[in-house]
């Protein structure tokens, strides 16, 4: 694999601007390394003020990176994975099917915020090389967290048919994954009702009951719940795994075991990629190298054109992020439009969930499987900078729309594929839940949350979208420097590997947890013993993590969560109200700058540029 950006270097501040959030720094360094970017630390130490890092390259002016929280919200110095998961609503969405609002158990927002941080920074470099002035990028970690739940926020704030799912609203025992009589935990997956019906009939479940299970299962990625009639898991708990596999194969339903991270590490494809979520292949040097000629852009990717042919979440989110950075995104949809447009809740004639990811794009309906449609795609690609798709494996070749075909019409193209399984030999639809199971993410989450499986929040679709978009912009930056296009592949599984690499590497705080208060939940994260000491002094409780728990819990019940948040942060103790009802986000004036309000609440770009 070529190291793409090895002439770039990232200079890290010695005085960490987010001192309580080491996992973010580690993820940032790891992702930069995987893109070939050299890492430098300053010696002797120099105080860079609020600058967290600087991106350097001989062809650009240095780009400073800053983390920025909304004024009046939590101070930057207290931000941590736990508090961001609490304050962004992520705990709430994860909690719908896991019993209560609680953390995911993996350093998710560290990986996501790192990807978004690098993305904004590399985009700024692209913008500079296209004649713009982008010397500083400011990233809102809260904005990144909010983007991760943007579709759920849209559903919760729609003008009608609003989704009102609170943490604990669905029985954590009566949801996928399932467990066999010989103790194997596994996911089932199918995108059609007939195989589902046939499978359940074959295990003795009445068709009507299978239909009830299907309704929840069908909508699980949209609602983060998948309520099942008790008879369904009970029927499978009586069968051995091999028998279930056999019946599922006969019915056309995929079965994917929930595996440990150790099992994932033994996979051949994992060992071959060494955990890199992107596979870059540089295009042959064309007779005429690409030269960016453009009017100075206001946003870093302004003037660049992306053709997107993607369904569901991962690919459209990648396109959305590129659009937020200023790219013109033309979205190809099948004749009649993407059926997701009709999925309630709707506003102004469109699914808000769909709109949240696609409102910045222009739409072109085209039958890409037809000869005429293919010719149109060639014509579009000729004038494009990026072609992004998430078709099923083999389809690009079949439709004569693979990287090579499109390179013939546009030699400088960045051709991107945001897939499911990468090179893994798994015969199942590559959806969020099957990939969580296979990659070890589900097992890690289950262990931390004492649930049977992973999250029904679309953990990997969102991170996969951010990773895919970052890969595209890294390739655009390489093209801006070298004049050469590239083919970049990423996948949900690659995103999962990246997530697991970054998780659990930093030590947990001395006291870190979610507590009930007089009204609402509060997340408290004491990363250092001196913070625990402050907490102990403030509340007159023992400064010991074990013996303080009972009196702490008692104290916390005497005031509402918001009062505790203010008081604890004033005393240097990281604390954040756990958002339980997503509608709270829409009315919190402190974070108003992060959200836009049309017919529903949408999430603004987490970047700003100077």
């Amino acid at each position: 694999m070529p190291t793409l950006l090895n002439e770039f270097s990232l200079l890290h501040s010695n005085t960490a601007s987010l001192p309580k959030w080491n996992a973010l720094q580690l993820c940032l360094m790891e992702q930069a390394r995987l893109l070939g970017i050299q890492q430098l630390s300053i010696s002797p130490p120099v105080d860079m003020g609020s600058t967290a890092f600087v991106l350097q390259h001989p062809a650009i002016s240095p780009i400073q990176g800053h983390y920025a929280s909304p004024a009046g919200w939590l101070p930057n110095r207290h931000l941590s994975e736990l508090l961001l998961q609490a304050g962004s609503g992520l705990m709430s969405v994860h909690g719908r099917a896991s019993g209560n609002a609680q953390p995911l158990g993996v350093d998710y927002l560290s990986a996501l915020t790192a990807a978004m941080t690098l993305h904004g920074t590399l985009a700024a470099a692209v913008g500079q090389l296209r004649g713009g002035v982008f010397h500083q990028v400011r990233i809102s970690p809260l904005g990144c967290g909010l983007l991760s739940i943007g579709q759920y926020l849209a559903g919760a704030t729609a003008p009608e048919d609003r989704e009102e799912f609170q943490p604990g609203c669905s029985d954590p025992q009566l949801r996928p994954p399932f467990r066999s009589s010989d103790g194997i935990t596994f996911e089932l997956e199918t995108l059609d009702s007939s195989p589902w019906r046939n499978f359940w009939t074959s295990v003795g479940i009445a068709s009507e009951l299978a239909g009830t299970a299907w309704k929840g299962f069908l909508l699980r990625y949209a609602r983060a719940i998948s309520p099942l009639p008790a008879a369904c898991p009970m029927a499978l708990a009586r069968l051995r795994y091999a028998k279930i596999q056999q019946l599922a194969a006969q019915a056309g339903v995929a079965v994917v075991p929930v595996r440990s991270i150790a099992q994932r590490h033994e996979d051949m494809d994992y060992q071959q990629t060494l955990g890199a979520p992107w596979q870059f292949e540089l295009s042959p040097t064309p007779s005429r190298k690409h030269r960016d000629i453009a009017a100075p852009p206001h946003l870093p990717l302004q003037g660049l054109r992306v053709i997107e042919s993607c369904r569901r979440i991962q690919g459209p989110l990648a396109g959305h992020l590129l659009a937020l950075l200023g790219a013109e995104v033309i979205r190809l949809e099948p004749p009649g439009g993407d059926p997701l447009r009709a999925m309630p809740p709707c506003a102004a004639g469109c699914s808000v969930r769909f709109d949240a990811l696609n409102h910045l794009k222009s739409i072109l309906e085209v039958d890409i499987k037809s000869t005429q449609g293919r010719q149109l795609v060639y014509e579009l690609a000729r004038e494009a900078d990026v072609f992004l798709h998430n078709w099923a494996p083999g389809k690009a070749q079949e439709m004569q729309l693979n990287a090579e075909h499109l390179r013939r019409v546009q030699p400088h193209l960045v051709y991107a594929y945001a897939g499911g399984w990468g090179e893994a030999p798994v015969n199942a639809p590559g959806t969020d839940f099957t990939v969580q199971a296979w990659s070890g993410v589900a097992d890690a989450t289950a262990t931390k949350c004492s649930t049977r499986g992973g999250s029904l929040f679309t953990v990997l679709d969102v991170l996969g979208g951010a990773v895919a978009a970052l890969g595209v912009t890294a390739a655009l930056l390489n093209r801006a420097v070298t004049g050469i296009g590239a083919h970049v592949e990423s996948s949900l599984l690659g995103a999962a590997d990246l997530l697991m690499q970054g998780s659990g590497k930093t030590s947990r705080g001395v006291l870190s947890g979610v507590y009930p208060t007089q009204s609402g939940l509060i997340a408290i994260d004491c990363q250092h013993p001196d913070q625990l000491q402050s907490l102990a002094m403030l509340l007159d409780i023992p400064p010991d993590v074990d013996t303080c728990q009972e009196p702490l819990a008692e104290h916390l019940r005497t005031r509402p969560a918001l009062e505790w948040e203010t008081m604890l942060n004033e005393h240097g103790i990281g604390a954040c109200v756990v958002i339980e009802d997503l509608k709270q986000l829409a009315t919190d004036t402190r974070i108003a700058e992060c959200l836009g309000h049309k017919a529903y609440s949408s999430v603004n770009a987490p970047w700003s540029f100077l």
Partner: protein
Amino acid sequence: MSISVIVPTLLRPLTNGEKRVSTHGNSVAEAIDNLERQFPGIKARLVNAEQVHRFVNIYVNEDDIRFADGLNTPIKAGDSLTVLPAVAGG
């Protein structure tokens, strides 16, 4: 008593903006044919070649007709028919 039909947002332009309309029939297919007479164009949005569109789900009360007798699923006065466009995946 008639059959009450819950119309999804995107089909409401065909039902004069109504979220809930009434129809009659002894099966889902008959109810859809009767709906078509009341609201021309609606049938094509629900079925194609006598099959329910792949991304349209129809429920009689709480039950998905794909897990009953499809368009031949019997209905009776007082039942409710819900149309829910949805795509599986994730």
